[in-house]
């Protein structure tokens, strides 16, 4: 009777290693068994053929038989090799599939483990576990059926064949194996012990590395190199000892196994030789025995290796899985129901959060927040205000008491329930590599699912995106990103619009901005453009006039000579390279260091080497490669941006002269190669902003820059192009961890993404701490005007001037709420809150 057993969900960390062998691989494993059986059958054929070739073909001198048997021998060998290849392919496929699956499932599991776990687990351990430790278990699973089966069956087949051929000699051939079967597991036990130690030591080592890298400031500031080196060296030495022992025992197994296998032929020679001399054994049979001995070696070796992989794999697997076998308190989603849609009431009743060491981060806290109400949590750092917010957000688990969201106990809600009803913005929000739009959609996509949001069914309207950008104050930043975009080929449709806007802008604001902008005027040097751009003074249409190709362009190099520019530019390039290398040598390179020099981070080593080599040389002594590198540098130099060197009036004059000579030359040679800056043409090498300006902003006066921005926004509104520009700006890539954004922009982005989700409860954990005053006030006013009554707000606030509008303020001290009330009530009370607001006199 077969009933389909209900599949019980077992967390990946509790699965046995053997459970991976069949699951999802059943068909492949069956195919493997079939191929293996055929292979083994074929493997015996050469043995039989050897015997027949000697006994029948050679002894009886029959050439036709010799050809036939040799043919069969060859066929068998070729087929066996081909089948072996197929077996390996299937095995690899299974191994890699299982390793990938283990990695995925473990990763999914790890992401769900509570935050507590990560406070004590270094990222290195997680990385190492996911990257390295699962390889051998994966290998084992791939081998688990194929290797033992093929090799044991092969051994049995050989044994059977040999025993049939000559029972005595057959038994002798295998006499040594039981001894090995006794000794090898003994040694393997030592190997296992050392392997476990090795894993522990590796983990300690990786923690140590992570610790010293994260704490490098402290190490360097305290000059604690000796201490750190000593600690590190000790762990490395321990690991070395363990690894030596581990490897030695592994080799010992190999050597002993080899020794016994090699002892086999000795027994065959002595006993088989004796039998042959006495005429009890045919010469062909002796050959077959000797050859079988050799052939026994491979399956045996593979079995031993498999045994070792099994042992190592089990240890790695169970140690790794065991490490992450932490109970996951929250369920991702309930199977039998959709996530709750809760109203935004929060009720906290005698909640305590105690660390395992007995420190009470929260001590008997109670409070109530009605739907749509706004609560501020204030207090000194360490008072527990963030802990309380994170408990409500289910990121920390309160150890006693009750907390409910919409009447449901928070600790019993699934992650899906929380995601559905709550939005959290932390103090240092994590921004992921990708565009502004992708980051903006992050919480939204997590809530609605990728397929739904990407295929457009549930994608938010542009209006919705624009609205949250405005509310969070990121709007102007995104607009700026849009304006600073250099158009890609697929956005050509906006070119005529920009040209049109240029005209309007010049008419409306041309005079007002004249003193702050360098217009693209043929007779004027542009400090904020590179020297190459100043010379060419147009957008290159032909590839060989693009900036990165100029050093390969002989026409251009000849032109530089004729315009008397080569030597002054070389001098400039040398100066830039020398200065940059002088300042940045011996530093850990940071992107910020390369804003003021035309050298790119990835080129630094190359220029450092050039500077070293040409140090005491004159210009005429440096070789062509160095010359080109320095010329290239000088051509990329823009005096407005790169403050590392300066241009003399004379040089500027030479460049302007060169501009005219270049124009004349290129017109004769290849008129289409460059499209010169013209008021009626789009300049593809420049940003949209510069295209509208038809120039480059030169002022460093913040008020002037602000004014130009205002004009620009007014223009975009007038031309009904604001939204399109925002769309372009939302494609801005924020860089790894949002590196291309400022701290304030990252916070605004995180706030915007929570606004977009529009949850019943918003939790802001010092979410505006990196913003300037005005932006903070703006967001506060958006919160109290547009979100009050709509979403419940619980905000950890560090600045007291923005808490006036909150319905309630809770003041925390040492994990307890010591005061609660409205702003006016607390001020009138002249207690803790009043004191925090007005100093400690």
């Amino acid at each position, binding site marked *: 009777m077969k009933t389909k057993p209900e599949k019980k969900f077992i967390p990946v960390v509790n699965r046995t290693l053997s459970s991976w062998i069949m699951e999802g691989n059943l068909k492949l494993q069956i195919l493997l068994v079939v191929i293996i059986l055929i292979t083994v059958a074929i493997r015996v054929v050469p043995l039989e053929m050897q015997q027949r070739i000697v006994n029948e073909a050679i002894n009886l001198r029959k050439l036709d038989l010799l050809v036939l048997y040799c043919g069969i021998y060859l066929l068998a060998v070729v087929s066996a090799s081909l089948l072996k290849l197929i077996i390996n392919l299937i095995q690899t496929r299974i191994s890699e599939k299982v390793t990938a699956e283990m990695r995925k499932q473990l990763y999914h599991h790890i992401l769900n483990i509570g935050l507590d776990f990560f406070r004590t687990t270094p990222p290195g351990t997680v990385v190492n576990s996911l990257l390295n430790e699962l390889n051998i278990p994966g290998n084992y699973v791939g081998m688990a059926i194929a290797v033992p089966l093929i090799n044991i069956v092969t051994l049995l087949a050989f044994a059977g064949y040999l025993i049939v051929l000559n029972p005595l000699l057959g038994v002798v051939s295998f006499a040594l194996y039981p001894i090995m079967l006794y000794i090898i597991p003994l040694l393997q036990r030592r190997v296992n012990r050392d392997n476990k130690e090795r894993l522990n030591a590796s983990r300690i080592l990786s923690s140590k590395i992570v610790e010293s890298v994260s704490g490098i*400031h402290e190490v*360097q*500031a305290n000059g604690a190199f000796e201490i750190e080196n000593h600690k590190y060296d000790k762990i490395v030495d321990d690991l070395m000892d363990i690894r030596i022992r581990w490897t030695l025992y592994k080799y010992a197994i190999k050597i002993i196994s080899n020794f016994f296998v090699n002892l086999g032929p000795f027994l065959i020679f002595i006993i088989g030789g004796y039998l042959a001399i006495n005429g009890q054994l045919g010469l062909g049979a002796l050959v077959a025995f000797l050859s079988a001995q050799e052939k026994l070696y491979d399956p045996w070796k593979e079995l031993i290796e498999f045994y070792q992989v099994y042992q190592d794999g089990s240890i790695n697997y169970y140690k790794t899985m065991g490490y992450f076998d932490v109970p996951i308190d929250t369920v991702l989603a309930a199977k039998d129901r959709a996530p709750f849609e809760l109203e935004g009431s929060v009720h906290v009743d005698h909640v305590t959060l105690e660390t395992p060491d007995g420190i009470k981060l929260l001590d008997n806290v109670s409070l109530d927040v009605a739907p749509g109400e706004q609560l501020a949590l204030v207090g000194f750092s360490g008072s527990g205000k963030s802990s309380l917010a994170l408990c409500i957000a289910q990121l920390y688990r309160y150890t006693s008491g009750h907390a409910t969201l919409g009447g449901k106990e928070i600790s019993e809600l699934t992650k899906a329930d929380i995601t559905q009803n709550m939005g959290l913005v932390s103090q240092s929000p994590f921004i992921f590599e990708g565009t502004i739009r992708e980051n903006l959609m992050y919480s939204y996509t997590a809530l609605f699912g990728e397929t739904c949001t990407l295929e457009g069914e549930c994608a938010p309207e542009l209006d919705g995106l624009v609205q949250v950008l405005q509310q969070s104050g990121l709007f102007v930043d995104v607009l700026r990103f849009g304006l600073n975009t250099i158009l890609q080929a697929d956005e050509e449709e906006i070119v005529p619009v920009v040209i049109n806007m240029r005209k309007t802008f010049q008419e409306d604001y041309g005079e007002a901005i004249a003193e702050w902008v360098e217009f693209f005027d043929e007779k004027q040097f542009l400090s904020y453009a590179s020297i190459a751009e100043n010379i060419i003074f147009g957008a290159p249409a032909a590839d060989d006039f693009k900036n990165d190709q100029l050093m390969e362009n002989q026409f251009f190099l000849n032109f530089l000579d004729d315009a008397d520019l080569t030597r002054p530019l070389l001098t400039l390039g040398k100066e830039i390279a020398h*200065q940059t290398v*002088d*300042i940045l040598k*011996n*530093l*850990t390179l*940071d992107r*910020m*260091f390369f804003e*003021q020099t035309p050298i790119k981070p990835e080129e630094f080593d190359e220029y450092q080497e050039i500077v070293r080599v040409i140090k005491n040389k004159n210009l005429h002594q440096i070789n062509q490669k160095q010359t080109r590198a320095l010329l290239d540098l000088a051509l990329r130099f823009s005096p407005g941006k790169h*403050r*590392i*060197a*300066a241009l*003399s009036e004379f040089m500027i004059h030479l460049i302007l002269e060169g501009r005219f000579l270049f124009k004349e030359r290129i017109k004769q040679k290849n008129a289409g190669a460059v499209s010169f800056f013209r008021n009626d043409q789009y300049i593809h090498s420049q940003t949209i902003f510069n295209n509208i300006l038809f120039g480059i902003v030169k*002022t*460093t*006066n*913040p*008020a*002037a820059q602000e004014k130009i921005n205002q004009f620009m926004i007014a223009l975009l509104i007038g031309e009904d192009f604001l939204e399109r520009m925002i769309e372009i700006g939302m494609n801005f890539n924020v860089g790894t961890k949002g590196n291309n954004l400022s701290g304030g922009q990252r916070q605004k982005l995180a706030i915007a993404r929570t606004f977009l989700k529009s949850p019943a409860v918003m939790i802001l954990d010092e979410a505006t*701490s990196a913003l*300037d*005053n005005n932006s903070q006030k703006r967001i506060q006013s958006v919160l109290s005007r547009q979100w009050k009554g709509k979403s419940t707000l619980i905000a950890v606030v560090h600045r007291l*001037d923005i808490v006036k509008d909150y319905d309630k303020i809770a003041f925390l001290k040492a994990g307890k709420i010591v005061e609660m009330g409205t702003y006016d009530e607390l001020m009138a009370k002249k207690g803790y809150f009043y004191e925090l607001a007005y100093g400690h*006199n």
Partner: protein
Amino acid sequence: MNSRMDTTDADNKSEFSANLNVFRQIEFFSGVSMDVIKLFAFLCKRQSYKPGDAIFLQDEDDQCAYYILSGAAKLVLKKDEKDYSIREYKAESYLGVLSLMAPMVKQFSLVATADTTCIVMTRNAFAKIADQFPDTPLKIIRAIGQRIATAERKCIMEFEPEKKEDLRNLLGISLI
């Protein structure tokens, strides 16, 4: 005043070299090595202001320190909707060094009273320098400490019993 900028321009020196000359003479940087000062000079930027432009604003943490290279600016305190002019800073003044080290809201506004150019250093850039040369903050704090002690000594020297009440909250600042 013969501003440094004019002379450097005449010598065709880069802005970096000019900054370097300036920073070498700022007392807060007197204890740090030349490599560090070079990085300071390399990472700071210049900003120009017209008369009436705010260089920084009261109650804002602009995360910057300013060296007035040319021009002048007045320090303004706004209290109860009224502006009080505290003092005027001329070229070669350095303001806001504490803002480089820690989040700190400016307690005053600084407003340009002439065409003014400042060399501006940001907290972010300072953090990068401290990453590379971890003992830099400590050395600068020493200079700040001395400066505070000197200022208080001066205050004590000028101390008169009848002004005691006015100064009560201020005296002892070097004991923080």
